[in-house]
């Protein structure tokens, strides 16, 4: 077999952004504005990459002229919601405060943040509660942000996957990467690094087991940033708390909050107490707070549950479709049209993508976008935060990374090069073998273990057994997996990252001896107020070390 890793290349820069999604692009734009040389390493193509690649339609935002001058009630509401509970108040304050400025920036750059001239808030809220999600037309956001980055001199490397960070134990000095087009290895030396690789898909099975790329968010986001940050010694938090969402059954898509219909049982009865007719402002929030309803209905003989949009006027339907298109659901809507499925006449079955758990937590970055390692910044879904979180903290991380790069020298070259052989050996091993499992076998094997041993039923004995099994997969993956070209090499490296993340979930889930949200410990079936703390994990001398940390809850004025 031909040696696909034939060449090596050295690149130097001030700020390296790993991942060119919303977070990475915003970081790159800001860092370049602050005078840094910036490189974005993007595993896909930046024009459509990441979970915002085909668009979005909700931007969490505080607008004083809409919400009034008191931001506190919004912070309270935020902390009650799905994204807030794992973050200290000071973090949410920083997020919301800066969201207004970032929103206006996007509007100026040509991402329409107003609807018919006004700020339009809808979705992601209970009736009567504060609306914080601004409807915006994000279908072309990636193209617009890319133009802004290019205008400021940012260098974009498409189809380049970073695998490991260079670290001297305290600070970060760049990353190794592969060029997926030709297998070339890149050594990117950088004074600071911003991680923005998104969430973790493909760790648990999809709702269609035979189609593992059928995920709610982009299936190319597999937690590369979490894995490389952990290997470099950075702190990760809340890896044991899973996130679970719902949408059209079997055709996994985000955007539930844009659907205006009522969730009904097969006889037409609403399953929740909130709405009885379609509502474009709130939708039907029942499943946001009672996600087990789909399974409970099935078990009690009352399922399935349908999203019923009967009753929307033509204008109301067009309004909803407008936002679904901007959310990036065009292929889904095209499919309905081709199959002659009429949204108003044919209630569509919804379900939780319950197999598709992914960790809410991840690389623990603070309100300055800093991680626990010097020179390493992170933003966006490196710790779940949605589009507005990605935009705001990308911007902040880029600014601080640029500042750091001004005052720090590059890492000592010898120290930089000394870490390289290990990564090279892994890459050469993968592409040098002739026989063995490919990445797909590895990925499926991981998914089976994760779902059966760290899924919605967790216990000490299951977690111990699963961790052992995953350890065996790790051995096989590192020593027998085969990649027959640079594309498969990239997928194989993703598998190694998924194993890393899977192990951290087992280790942290075992430590959290309580049930909290969808972290369901059948041997500890209650939520223990004493454990309302962050669980931190980091690598020390080759081993994971756990630490419980109080979450600061004080009010910031």
């Amino acid at each position: 077999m031909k040696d696909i890793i034939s060449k090596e290349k050295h690149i130097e820069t001030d700020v390296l952004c790993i991942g060119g999604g919303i977070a990475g692009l915003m970081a790159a734009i800001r860092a370049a504005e602050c005078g840094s040389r910036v490189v974005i390493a993007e595993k896909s193509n930046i024009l459509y990459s990441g979970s915002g690649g085909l668009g979005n339609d909700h931007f969490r935002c505080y607008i004083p002229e809409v919400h009034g001058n008191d931001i506190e009630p919004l912070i309270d509401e935020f902390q009650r919601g799905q994204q807030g509970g794992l973050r200290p108040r000071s973090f949410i304050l920083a997020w919301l405060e800066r969201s207004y400025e970032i929103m206006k920036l996007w509007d100026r750059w040509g991402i329409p943040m107003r609807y018919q001239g006004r700020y339009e808030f809808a979705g992601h809220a209970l009736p009567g509660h504060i609306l914080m999600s601004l409807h915006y037309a994000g279908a072309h956001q990636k193209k617009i942000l890319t133009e802004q980055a290019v205008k400021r001199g940012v260098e974009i490397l498409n189809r380049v996957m970073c695998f490991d960070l260079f670290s001297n134990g305290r600070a970060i000095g760049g990353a190794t990467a592969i060029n997926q087009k030709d297998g070339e290895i890149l050594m990117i030396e950088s004074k600071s690094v911003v991680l923005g690789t998104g969430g973790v898909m493909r760790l648990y099975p999809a709702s269609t087991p035979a189609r593992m790329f059928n995920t709610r968010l982009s299936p190319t986001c597999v937690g590369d940033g979490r894995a490389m940050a952990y290997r470099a010694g950075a702190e990760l938090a809340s890896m044991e708390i899973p996130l679970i969402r719902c949408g059209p059954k079997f055709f996994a898509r985000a955007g539930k909050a844009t659907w205006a219909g009522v969730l009904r049982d097969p006889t037409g009865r609403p399953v929740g107490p909130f709405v009885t007719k379609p509502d474009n402002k709130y939708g039907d929030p029942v499943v946001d707070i009672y996600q087990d309803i789909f399974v409970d209905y099935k078990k009690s003989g009352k399922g399935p549950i349908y999203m019923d949009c009967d009753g929307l006027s033509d204008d109301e339907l067009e309004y909803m479709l407008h936002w679904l298109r901007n959310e990036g659901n065009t292929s889904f809507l095209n499919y309905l049209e081709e199959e002659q499925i009429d949204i108003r006449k044919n209630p569509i079955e919804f379900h939780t993508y319950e197999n598709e758990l992914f960790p809410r937590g991840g690389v623990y970055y603070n309100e300055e976008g800093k991680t626990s390692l010097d020179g390493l910044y992170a933003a966006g879904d490196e710790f779940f935060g949605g589009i507005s979180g990605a935009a705001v903290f990308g911007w902040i991380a880029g600014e601080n990374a640029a500042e750091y790069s001004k005052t720090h020298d590059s890492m000592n070259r010898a120290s930089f090069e000394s870490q390289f052989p290990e990564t090279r050996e892994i890459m050469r091993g993968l592409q040098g073998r002739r026989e063995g499992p490919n990445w797909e076998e590895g990925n499926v094997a991981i998914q089976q273990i994760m779902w059966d041993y760290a899924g919605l039923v967790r216990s000490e004995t299951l977690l111990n057994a699963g961790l052992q099994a995953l350890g065996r997969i790790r051995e096989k993956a590192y020593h027998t997996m085969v990649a027959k070209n640079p594309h498969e090499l990239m997928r194989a490296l993703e598998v190694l990252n998924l194993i890393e993340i899977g192990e951290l979930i087992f280790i942290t889930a075992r430590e959290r001896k309580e049930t909290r949200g969808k972290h369901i410990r059948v041997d500890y079936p209650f939520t223990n107020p004493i454990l309302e703390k962050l669980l931190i994990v980091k690598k020390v001398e080759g081993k994971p070390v756990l630490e419980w940390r109080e979450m600061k809850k004080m009010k910031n004025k």
Partner: protein
Amino acid sequence: MPPVIAPDKCLSCGECADVCPSDVFFGSKKGEIPVVAYPNECWHCNACVSACPHEGSIKLRIPLPLMVLYQESS
């Protein structure tokens, strides 16, 4: 095979192969009709369709397991 290219309409510009987030067209050559080398990695996101400069040259075929379930109208 999710993206389907109509060979008689395709301009062989390679835009679809260039933008695909999952790189399902890996190995396709510039100036030739792209080849869907990794169909199982398609997210059905529509990037290829929206980047194609010649309407009707490429479309997505949604695989049967992703079939949307719905109630017949009464």
